[in-house]
């Protein structure tokens, strides 16, 4: 019997971003998504906007969106905690259709979640009333398209939790 794919590769994410005509990735690297860097830099269809602190990402993305572009944010869950007022003021309050790809630090499907970063992540996202999807393998990557469609349809931020570190 064929084994199901259980690894998440950067190309699976990038393929989804290209499919959805994403123009900019506003990001701060983390251990879940850092392996995307080289492929992001090499992709001529995507512009990378590195930030100094995660709270900048939603505001920069808002400016890009108002200016006619289609950005996504790519940060870690720890950065989501830091970004609260930007998500409120320049995401939810202005109806920005932003997909936030969030490295889910501490998440473990198979064991006890001990990292407080993981313990609080979904509670915080629920508190904002933001819907979210979980991506753990290449087979899940098409959930990014679901999130992109939902964000555009409802003019609201939608989250995608990246629940594993990337494979090479």
């Amino acid at each position, binding site marked *: 019997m064929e084994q199901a794919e259980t690894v998440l590769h950067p190309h699976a994410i990038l393929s989804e971003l290209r499919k959805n005509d994403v123009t*900019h990735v*506003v990001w701060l690297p983390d251990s879940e998504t850092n392996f995307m860097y080289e492929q992001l830099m090499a992709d001529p269809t995507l*512009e990378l*906007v*590195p*930030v*100094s*602190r995660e*709270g*900048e990402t*939603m*505001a*920069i*993305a*808002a*400016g*890009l*969106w*108002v*200016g*006619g*572009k289609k*950005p996504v944010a790519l940060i870690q869950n720890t950065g989501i905690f830091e970004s609260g*007022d*930007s998500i409120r*003021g*320049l995401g939810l*309050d*202005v*109806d920005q259709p932003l997909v936030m790809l969030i490295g889910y630090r501490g998440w473990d499907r198979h064991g006890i979640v001990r990292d407080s970063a993981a313990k609080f992540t979904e509670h915080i996202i629920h508190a904002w009333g933001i819907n979210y999807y979980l991506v753990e393998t290449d087979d899940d990557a098409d959930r990014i398209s679901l999130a992109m469609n939902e964000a555009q349809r409802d003019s609201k931020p939608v989250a995608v939790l990246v629940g594993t570190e990337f494979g090479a």
Partner: protein
Amino acid sequence: MIDNLDACRVIERNRNDAIVVTTMGAGNPRFGWPIVSRDETMDVPVGGAMGKASSFALGLALAQPGRNVLILDGDGSLVMNLGTLTTISERAPANLYHFVFDNGCYAVTGGQPIPADGKVSFKEMASGAGYSATYEFDNLEDLASGIGEILQKQGPVLVNLKITPEIENTPIGQRPRPTRNTYAAVQELRQALSE
């Protein structure tokens, strides 16, 4: 020191077709940008975002490289989001002009001094972060004579303005309300830029 409204007037006379993002005192409806602006559709007031107006302006500048974007920032706002200096410098949009209304205090909360007031130099910080050019003015005449040339420079440019504080001590509920909120401005500008 430069009067807040006078600084806005000088900038407005030189804006041409620029998008103008304002926050805090610079965007105050009683003594700031809304009084002088002649192109409201191209204005975006970004209040209450903990210093992120400059980040929003960066996104706009990257999305609209053929049009100047002016950010009228506050010194209290900038210290809340100091990383914006390196983030802006990294992408270095040639069309971004970062004006800091430096009155040394949180004027909207009663005039408490910002951290390191009297010691910090935003001009030097922006220069050290890698902005293309940086300036500082403490009188209106020099600003008025220099701004035309400054807006011809390749960005990102930071212009620190030493502004006379306009302290607000009246309860928030009794202060004049902005005629446009961020939501309305964002929707209108997005529509205008897509036409």
